[in-house]
């Protein structure tokens, strides 16, 4: 009974002392449950045929996040063990067996986790509704409230919880079982060994700068050249490792660097109570270098995830229009499938308009053509063999296609041509065309009009008067149709079967706008949701660890501030110092991400060069940082309020 009583009392006390950690665990369990519930929800699975893949992706991401949450639990459990080492030492000293002490501590930890799981699942019922509403809105479906407890979601979340705690409990059991009583009793009096000397600090800081410079350069080169040559992407892994090494090296040397800097600039140090503030900060830096470096890395990853997610949204929105410009589009090398596609639609008795056309890689054999359009793309992301060939189209075909989209285009004279180009490349192509001649039979062709309407899945093509392609054998056959009503996405597979013959190895590309939208929305939901899910967990984990570290030495903090008060610092000064102390500590892990953010985002942006997205990724930093700081500063505020309450001056 004594042990049960002790365990319950310890549990009550731990839940109060580590309230911020409990909050994060509840949030983690809540998010895990709600994402699992989304993945297993019938309403979500019905939205698209791809949504079962969504469930698998969520599962994989959740298992990945289990590692991060597991690290957080491990950190806090170790922390508790260190802080309460004297208490456990006393239990053993008074005669409790190690088994009894282990059982008490592990039961306490398990109950804390179970509590978080229970509350998390209950709150998850509500966050699931929010996620469901968002997903249904993305797919253009009216939200329907359906309060249902998802047993599979609760089961998978419980499994994750068991994995998290099983490993941790075994680890703590082994520690408690083998540590000696003396170590437990005097652990809190141990201090870290201070490595002094400029050489050490210089090595770390120079190493950090070198790794950062080389890493960022490699990363940029890998991304930029990787678009043209896949082999170049091999640079990305060493680049990432160098950036990580740079972060850790920086934090290993930062405390020493700060000390040396302040010793050289004593005037800076002695002013405005900075010495006390920076002394506390340095103490924290020395004790928690590795953890702070890890949090810094997590923060950088979080910011990249959030910006990437927002850029992906922009790309998805724009790509839908360019990738599926018509309700139906069939592309094939074999003309007979065009008739079959047209026949399929005719059977459905729909109201629609259609058109069949071809594209050409050259004009009539009897005309002398001089053009260098492909050179416009030299030294750009499109500088590859795929874009070396210029595509030509007949004016009549383009006129009809634009008519289907409700647009008009001016007529072309015999010595005029039109350029159809993506909005992103309009300036580049138009300025090139105006400077470099396009001649037919020695006569200069005038650029009559530049159109940015999405018609063909190519970056640009040249529209010439019909006469120049008369009798020319086209390369590819196209069939497009615009319907009064949206065509069901299920027809895509049927059309594909009708327009292909696997025995003869003849295949057509069939693209239904509705199906493409569904697939895009699925990709968007999967990628963006997972990125935001992971980012949220990372921010909460970082905030929890920082808060716990600050709150962990409340007694020592109380004593130091009391001493300062006795020496004549007013209450106002002390509260201000406390605020700066906490703020600086919370800002420490953001130091390096602030430096790495923009070069890394610029490099990642290269991935989107060949898409229609024009907004640079770093432009999303504003919203990203707003989201990030909303959660991060909530943790800071909770920490400051707790510290201030404890000061008791």
């Amino acid at each position: 009974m004594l042990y049960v009583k002790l365990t319950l009392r310890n549990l009550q006390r731990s839940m109060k002392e580590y309230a911020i950690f409990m909050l994060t665990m509840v949030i983690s369990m809540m998010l895990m449950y709600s994402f699992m519930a989304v993945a297993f929800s019938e309403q979500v699975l019905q939205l698209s045929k791809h949504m079962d893949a969504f469930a698998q992706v969520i599962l994989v991401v959740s298992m990945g996040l289990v590692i991060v949450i597991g690290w957080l639990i491990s950190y806090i459990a170790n922390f508790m063990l260190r802080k309460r080492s004297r208490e456990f030492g006393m239990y053993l000293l008074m005669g409790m067996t190690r088994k009894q002490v282990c059982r008490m501590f592990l039961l306490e930890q398990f109950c804390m986790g179970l509590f978080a799981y229970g509350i998390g699942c209950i709150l998850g019922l509500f966050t699931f509704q929010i996620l469901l509403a968002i997903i249904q809105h993305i797919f253009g479906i009216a939200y329907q409230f359906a309060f249902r407890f998802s047993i599979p979601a609760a089961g998978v979340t419980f499994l994750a919880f068991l994995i998290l705690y099983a490993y941790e409990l075994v680890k703590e059991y082994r520690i408690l079982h083998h540590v000696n009583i003396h170590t437990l009793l005097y652990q809190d009096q141990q201090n870290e060994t201070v490595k002094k000397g400029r050489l050490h600090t210089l090595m770390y800081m120079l190493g950090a700068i070198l790794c950062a410079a080389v890493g960022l350069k490699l990363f940029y080169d890998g991304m930029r050249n990787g678009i043209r040559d896949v082999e170049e992407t091999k640079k990305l892994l060493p680049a990432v490792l160098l950036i990580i090494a740079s972060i850790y090296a920086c934090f290993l040397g930062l405390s020493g660097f700060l000390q040396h800097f302040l010793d050289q600039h004593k005037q800076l140090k002695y002013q405005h109570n900075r010495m006390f503030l920076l002394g506390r900060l340095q103490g924290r830096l020395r004790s928690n270098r590795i953890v702070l470096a890890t949090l810094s890395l997590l923060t950088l990853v979080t910011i990249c995830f959030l910006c990437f997610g927002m850029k992906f949204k922009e790309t998805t929105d724009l790509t839908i229009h360019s990738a599926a410009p018509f309700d139906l589009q069939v592309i094939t090398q074999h003309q007979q499938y065009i008739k079959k596609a047209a026949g399929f639609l005719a059977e459905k008795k729909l109201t629609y308009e259609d058109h069949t056309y071809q594209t050409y890689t050259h004009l009539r054999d009897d005309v002398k053509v001089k053009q260098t359009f492909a050179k416009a793309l030299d030294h750009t992301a499109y500088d590859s063999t795929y874009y070396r060939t210029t595509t030509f189209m007949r004016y009549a075909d383009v006129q009809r296609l634009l008519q289907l989209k409700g647009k008009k285009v001016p007529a072309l004279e015999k010595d005029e041509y039109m350029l159809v180009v993506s909005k992103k490349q309009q300036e580049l192509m138009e300025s090139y065309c105006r400077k470099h001649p396009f001649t037919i039979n020695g006569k200069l062709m005038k650029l009559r009009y530049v159109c940015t309407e999405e018609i063909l899945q190519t970056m640009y093509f040249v529209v010439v008067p019909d006469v120049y392609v008369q009798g020319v054998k086209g390369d590819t056959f196209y069939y497009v149709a615009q319907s009064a009503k949206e065509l069901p996405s299920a027809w895509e597979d049927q059309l594909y079967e009708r327009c292909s013959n696997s025995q003869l190895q003849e295949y057509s590309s069939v693209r239904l706008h509705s199906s493409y939208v569904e697939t895009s929305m699925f990709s968007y939901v999967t990628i963006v949701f997972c990125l935001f899910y992971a980012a949220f967990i990372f921010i909460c984990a970082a905030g929890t660890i920082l808060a716990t570290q600050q709150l962990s030495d409340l007694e020592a903090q109380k004593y130091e501030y009391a001493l300062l008060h006795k020496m004549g610092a007013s209450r106002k000064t002390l509260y201000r110092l406390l605020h700066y102390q906490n703020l600086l500590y919370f800002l420490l892990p953001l130091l390096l991400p602030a430096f790495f953010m923009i070069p890394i985002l610029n490099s990642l942006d290269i991935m989107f060069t060949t898409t229609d997205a024009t907004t640079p990724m770093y432009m999303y930093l504003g919203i990203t940082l707003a989201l990030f700081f909303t959660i991060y500063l909530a943790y800071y505020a909770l920490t400051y309020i707790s510290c201030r309450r404890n000061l008791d001056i």
Partner: protein
Amino acid sequence: MTLLRVEHVEKYYGNGGNLCKALDDISFTMEQGEFMAVMGASGSGKTTLLNVIATIDTPSGGDIYVQDENVSTKKEEALAAFRKQQLGFIFQDLNLLNTLRIDENIALPLTLLHYDTKQIDEKVLKMAQRLGIEDVLLKYPYEVSGGQRQRCACARAMIHQPSLILADEPTGALDSHASYLFMEQLLQRNTEDHASILMVTHDAFSASYAKRILFLKDGKIFNELYRGEYSRSSFYQKILDVMMLLGGDVHAIR
């Protein structure tokens, strides 16, 4: 010149029927440059007396004057300024900030006073040399011995030349040799720098360095001893004689 005047000071703890009188009508004065000790058994009120003089605690009654300024009626901001400028503290243990080096701990009062930053290092070095701790200036408190830590605390208490240095059981956590070294240093500061020192202690050896000792018993002044012309060892004996009575009355000695 009178530095400190304590007039009819009282301190109560608790309320209603559970009242505890820690200080009961204490009155005394202390002159400039005097080295005074306050002795008594545990619970006699000596630390409480030190705390009210230091303005860390407020007296329930009476007045305390430091250099003719009544400190018992000052507001919080004024008290903070008073402590910063006029007082220096040495405690038994947990004196120093572990996050600052020894030199930074010593410099702390000067930074609180916004002292001229160009002169801080020089002052710190001079003080450290006088206390024999210049070799450990760049170390952290947990890297040095207890005696060195206390001498650092002494340096910190004196660096801004306060009117009054308050020491609460300064040798409580030190071994005999370290206590001896520390008390020798404290005495030197009193004789050479004319520092006014009010020390609370239960240790007769430490108290024998003072010129005057107040004995407290149950919150009241029980006795007072002046060293006068006595040697330290004789004074030490006299202290022991008085201390015998602190725990009980003459008839209790068999």
